[in-house]
């Protein structure tokens, strides 16, 4: 019962909230859709914290694609041994995790002590930093400490297939019953974080301006219809 809730119902609820929340906010509350920059208030700490965190999290994102989305069999056909994989995952992923955690701690301290930033921080701002920090901290703990001291856990046999099964609507929750607790916490909080995205400034993740290098530098727009008919 609990397993069905945790590994079927809860993830779907979270993803639904995320998707519909984002669509609603994009369509009706676009004026609130922006990156939460505090560059204007403080630069020195941001210079270290923000790039450290963001490059780390982008790195970590690709790490998750490699570990969770790409099936184990893919590595086997390529001839990448489990040992090699884990070596890369622990050190590469560990580094990314540390970058994320260190960057976030800097950003958090900055948020708590530097004045205009502190005073203008909203509950949602703290919430998203703390939530990402918690998820990242458990993830980093798993990657470095758990893997090195307990066992190099093979999530490609459990979490990976379960995660992919969510997207074909055949959730294999049975895979998740026996995974280590720390992994359970990481996954559950990550889904909760996804559900919170539409309500915080984390929406900026979905606006990465990927088309910028391809567009012409100057943009002209006109009021509606101005050029359509010639007079």
């Amino acid at each position, binding site marked *: 019962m609990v397993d069905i809730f945790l590994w079927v119902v809860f993830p779907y609820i979270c993803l639904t909230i995320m998707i519909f929340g984002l669509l609603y906010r*994009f*369509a*009706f509350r*676009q*004026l*609130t*859709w*922006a*990156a*939460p*920059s*505090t*560059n*204007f*208030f*403080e*630069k020195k700490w*941001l*210079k270290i914290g*923000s*790039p450290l*965190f*963001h*490059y780390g999290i982008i790195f970590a994102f690709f790490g998750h694609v490699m570990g969770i989305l790409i099936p184990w069999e893919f590595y086997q056909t390529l001839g990448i041994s489990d040992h090699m994989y884990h070596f890369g995952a622990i050190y590469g992923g560990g580094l990314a995790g540390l970058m994320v955690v260190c960057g976030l701690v800097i950003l958090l301290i900055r948020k708590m002590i530097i*004045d*205009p930033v502190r*005073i*203008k921080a909203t509950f949602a701002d703290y919430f998203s930093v703390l939530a990402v920090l918690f998820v990242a901290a458990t993830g980093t703990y798993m990657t470095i400490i758990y893997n090195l001291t307990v066992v190099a856990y093979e999530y490609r046999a459990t979490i990976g297939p379960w995660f992919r099964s969510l997207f074909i609507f055949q959730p294999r929750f049975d895979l998740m019953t026996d995974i280590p607790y720390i992994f359970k916490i990481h996954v559950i909080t990550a889904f909760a974080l996804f559900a919170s995205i539409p309500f915080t*400034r984390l929406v*900026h993740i979905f*606006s990465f*301006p990927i*088309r*910028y*290098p391809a*567009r012409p*530098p*100057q*943009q*002209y*727009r*006109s*009021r*509606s*219809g*101005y*050029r*359509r*008919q*010639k*007079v």
Partner: protein
Amino acid sequence: MRIKAQVAMVMHLDKCIGCHTCSVTCKTTWTNRPGTEYMWFNNVETRPGIGYPKRWEDTKRYKGGWVLENGKLKLRAGGPITKLANIFYNPNMAELEDFYEPWSYDYDNLIHSPKRENLPVARPFSQITGKYIDKPEWGSNWDDDLAGGSENVKRDPNVEKLQEHIKTEYEKTFMMYLPRICEHCLNPSCVASCPTGALYKRDEDGIVLVDHDACRGWRFCQNGCPYHKVYYNWNTHKAEKCNFCYPRTEAGLPTICSETCVGRIRYIGVVLYDADKVKAAASVEDPKELYKAQLACFLDPFDPEVQDQAREAGITDPWIEAAKESPIYKLAIKWKIALPLHPEYRTLPMVWYVPPLSPIMNHITNEDELKTDGYIPAVDQMRIPMEYLASILAADDVKVIRKVLLKLTAMRVFMRGKTVGGIDEFRQSELLKEAETTPEEVVEMARLLGVAKYKERYVIPTGRREMDDDLFYQQGACSIEDLAPKEGMNPRYGMMKVRENL
């Protein structure tokens, strides 16, 4: 040829009295909300001075505008790839302290203070943190009228370039006012700096606007503008800038800053230009040629061929008529007495300035006996060094400034001659020749600069509405509706859809 119309402004600096009325009326109209307290879409600077934000002309620091690299035009702060790599932290962005911490006063205390021995005071408090600031130390006009002169004047980036003797001698102190708004450039670097494409130049009138729905707060436009005329709203996390009061200009009215200008220094009108020439004009090698290159982009509204092409491009007859009557066309293009602000930034700005005349350093003793040509050397001895004006208005080309000052001097001498005599001498004079003008032109100039009534200063055709998607919906609405659409309706998907890149 790709003809476009541009609504442009000229400010006649001789007439600016530095009263800041323009700044205040603009502020009460556009920037009196939380997050905008520190913004002045219009500000008036005393030059020489640091300016607002501090040392905005220091392009090494803020990296605004364009540079020419191997013949190619590039954003000084770096192109798209550099920007995307720097998106998590913008190293060149101006901070709050580069502007100033806005404050208000605790007026409430004046009313509600309990009975005390001493008079209650209204203490200043920060409009950002809410804390008391016991000693405000900088504001947008802290160095007004050369306040803090010996310190602040030296830090003016234009003064830094001048020779030593000009800056230090007290007797040679000079001063002028420089009101600044967004330049609504032909080649705006703010637009090119925006990763999202939220800033755009309006096709029909050239006004540069921020699409607040699309803006994602990546904050590169803020320092991408070399004039530092885009501001970051810390409350909404979006960019804001002067919008040329488009709801007014669309209705044929001058902008608020112009309307309320006490010195009547501002002129607004339409110019026609060829958008195909803009890029090449901004890419000429020698910065001193930029002024001429920009002039070459403008089109003659009296030329029947230009008129035909303009109609072809969807520019209506009222606009073409307005372009003919345009005071901007006269001041900037026909008479060439208005100059662009810092043309070397390569944005091709569209708010131009008639440089100020200033008292002559060496006292002219018997002005009554002075021959007309005696005024020629006087131009070179004016209190405001020509090098300084050239640094601001002509990419250091003193010749350009000198020509304008000569023309303005010729105008004064002639108009004076009309009452005290000496017109005939004027007609033969070297001054007339060197200034390359004629008595007829000079009279016309004097009328526009000195007498000009409202209708002559502001020739603004109304915006076109007949093609709007839903005129029925817009009936009785003001054009700000586009900024604040009906609750819950996104103009991108609603009926007021803005078509991009038409």
